[in-house]
């Protein structure tokens, strides 16, 4: 197998065509061989990328922008492994990685959580057997707390300051313990968490209250691989799935659509202040009645065939990759 990490450049701003679409395909700048499947990756900082491998190794690559090359900067071999090397059937894949420079947290099929620090050779902390099932994804809740999801439908909060190897809180789905594959936290409201499951269901959790999700939204027809809140426009959420679709969830409400009685009082009311609008939009994610605060859901892929495995968004730009070995870039997301 010849797996590679590649860096692409996507057109320059001057190259806009008739409909504002970008002419020209993404250009490959540089690439480097990678051992094993790439299960997850994230930028640590402007130059470094952390990559999780199916062999259980976590590697930090550095992108040298002056001569456009990639090099392996640091590597933690066997970050994830099964205990008995003789009977273990291959390595344990590292399934998720999250960074908060200089800290790196990884989780894997071995149910292990690792806390690394860039440039430190050994792991800062390892929680062995943190979970009896596979940990599918991890994200930061606060700088010292992380969220993990596993294959028996549990969302767990871990406090890394504490020395005990137990989660500080466990949330689970109602009903069947459908495996959860992805998790993301609202960028501004830290108590709002979204997870995606094997049955394609999107769950929104309020971790301040209760141990069950606030809302369950029937979304995809197959595994939801990734869920992301838009980092600067968090009333927008994106999910992608094995069924080949990528959905854009839009809860941004139009101020003028609010019923007229709210207009009373003019300036003295606080209804239209920015903070309140933010709050009322936030509650859109937590509200149980999707008809009250209108949510628009759009499938961004017209002719879906194979699975969309991964996506990312920044500003007006959306990138996603499919099993048809294609990468798609949409630079005019909100046009």
């Amino acid at each position, binding site marked *: *197998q*010849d797996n590679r990490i590649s860096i692409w450049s996507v057109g320059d701003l001057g190259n806009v065509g008739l409909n504002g679409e970008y002419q020209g395909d993404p250009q490959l700048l540089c690439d480097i061989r990678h051992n094993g*499947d790439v*299960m997850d990756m994230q930028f640590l900082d402007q130059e470094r990328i952390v990559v999780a491998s*199916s062999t259980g190794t976590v590697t930090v690559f550095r992108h040298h922008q002056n001569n456009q090359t990639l090099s392996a900067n640091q590597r933690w071999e066997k970050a994830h492994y*099964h*205990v*008995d090397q003789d*009977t*273990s*059937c*291959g390595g*344990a*894949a590292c*399934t998720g990685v999250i960074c908060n420079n200089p800290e790196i947290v990884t989780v894997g*099929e*071995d*149910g292990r959580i690792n806390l690394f620090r860039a440039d430190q050779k050994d792991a800062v902390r390892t929680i062995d*057997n943190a*979970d*009896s*099932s*596979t940990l599918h994804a991890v994200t930061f809740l606060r700088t010292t707390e992380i969220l993990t999801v*596993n*294959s*028996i*439908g*549990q969302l*767990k909060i871990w406090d890394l300051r504490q020395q005990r190897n137990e*989660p500080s809180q*466990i949330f*689970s*789905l109602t*009903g*069947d*313990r459908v*495996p959860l594959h992805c998790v993301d936290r609202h960028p501004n409201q830290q108590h709002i968490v979204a997870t995606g499951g*094997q049955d394609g269901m999107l769950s929104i959790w309020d971790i301040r209250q209760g141990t069950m999700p606030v809302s369950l939204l029937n979304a995809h027809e*197959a*595994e939801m691989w990734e869920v992301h809140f838009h980092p600067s426009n968090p009333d927008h959420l994106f999910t992608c799935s*094995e069924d080949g679709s990528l959905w854009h969830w839009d809860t941004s409400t139009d101020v003028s659509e609010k019923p007229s009685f709210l207009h009373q009082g003019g300036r003295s009311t606080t209804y239209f202040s920015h903070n309140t609008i933010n709050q009322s939009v936030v509650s859109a994610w937590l509200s149980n009645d999707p008809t009250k605060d209108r949510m628009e859901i759009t499938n961004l892929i017209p*002719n879906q*065939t*194979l*699975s969309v495995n991964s996506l990312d968004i920044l500003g007006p730009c959306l990138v996603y990759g499919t*099993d*048809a*070995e*294609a990468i798609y870039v949409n630079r005019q997301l909100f046009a």
Partner: protein
Amino acid sequence: LTAYVAGTGEGGPSSSRLFVVRKDQDIYIQTLRKLFNESHGIFIGLQRSEEELAGKSRKAQLVQVSKNYRSVIRACMEDMHQAAILTRDPALHSQYSTQVSILSAMELIWNLCEILFVEAAAAGPLLLRLLDWVRLHVCDVDNMVHEVLSSENPSKHELFWNVVDVFVLQGRMDEARHLLSKEASANPTSVNMYKTLDDLMKKMPVPSLGNTQTLTEMELKWQHWHEECQRYLQDGTFASSSHMESICKILLGDEDAILEKKDLMTTWYHFLVTRLLYSHPTVKPMELRFYAQACMDLFLGGESSPEPLDTILMAAFEFEMHQVIKECSIALSNWWFVAHLTDLLDHCKLLQSHNLYFGSNMREFLLLEYASGLFSHHSLWQLGVDYFDHCPEYGRVYLELHIERIPLNTEQKALKVLRICEQRQMHEQVRSICKIMAMKALRNNRLGSALSWSIRAKDAAFATLISDRFLKDYCESGCFSDLDLIDNLGPSMLLSDRLTFLGKYREFHRLYGEKRFSEAAKLLLMLMTAHIAPCSFWMTLLTDALPLLEQKEVIFSAEQTYELMRCLEDLTAGKSDKQKFQDDDVETMKVEMLRLALARNLARVIVKEGTLEGS
């Protein structure tokens, strides 16, 4: 897989054969992956496209599909060409270059099939399409054209007349006239000659694509024009310039004159189209075969024999579709081309559904072969699945066999395979794959993962196995591992009795820990009396009852105590004498202690229950 057969000797009673089996290398060529992926998308689109569209719109749709396939081939050719230029390794360079020429041949054949079969161009437009085809594909002369056009004084260039001839041979009248005008301005003495020739070229009637004229009209016009050319030639108008005279002869369709320019045409099919342009522009599709055969014979002239490509193109001109497919299958190393072309032709309803002797029709056979080839690749197998889906007879069987053999090195890959199986109700495969994954997980001591796989497959037997493992761990270590799993089983607890027991047993421990003794007691008893607990575990349960019996406060009621005693007796009675003999002291002591505790409890509770309240 491709197999080569070498025979020894001529038909002896047992002629031994040597088979050389070679793995299909093409799927591993990096640049071809784009071809496979993109064509997969086009294939799926075609299968899903509406069949209800009839007539012209359906044909237009199919022609578009054909063009899409061709543009994918061309894109691949581009990439391959770039790769050939950039590589420093001579072996790779030659490999890439070979691939480029193979892809180019494929596009040539496909294009011709599109014109003749998919679009089924009628007399008139047929010629125009063939002209386009030739211009697009016979481009050995492009360099020469470019050289002359970009030179300072084109008309003085030594290859000038060659380029004019090329334009005329390919029917590119405007370009030819443009070049000639340069010559005319440089040579004022022969202005009249140029004017005449220019005029003739301008007036040449060509078939039109639209409905502006009927074939008969065109034929009439063409006849007049032809006669006019003839007159000019016979009058000796062009006698002073051999170049222009030969051009005029070409315009008249003179075979020898055209054949003289053999090197400029390079191929017999170019010769064919040029001849048709200047002698039978309204050629009908069915007439092509005669001209094609004649032209090929003339062009090759007995010096060289036809190559595979020539045979394939000839078969196409003869409208022998099956022959085309057969020849391509032999000539090409990979099933890609024939599989997709046959599928398209099948959608055009052009292939008779004559069955091959082993039951499926040709389209299905080729698709099955192609898709099977994909399955030997570690990631292109996903494309193969969709191809199998569209083979009605054997697709499912092939898929069932192939999908179980995909190596599952990560859980994510297993999940993808499972999803494919579930979507197609392949329950056997789902069970088998989940069992494999669960077994792997169990061996790696990932009990939660193992349980998760059993739940997916609804495999009660395996869930029982996992629960037994938990219980065994508990008996050995005295505490539960993986509490996060057992405490949160939820409805999946009902998958197997043993699992339910595990969940309830853990609940008992929890209740005990929270000091909710009477509830714990009730639960414990229920576990035994409702036969949820396996017999092997009864001893442990009864031992767990001991601390409850020894509590200061009476917990078990009389009824419950009787039940417990009955359980104990059932348990000991079940043992044969021999077993009782083998029981060590610990066992017998346990039983003794239990009997004692139960008796004491009974005594206390009878007194308590017998006591009147309030007194």
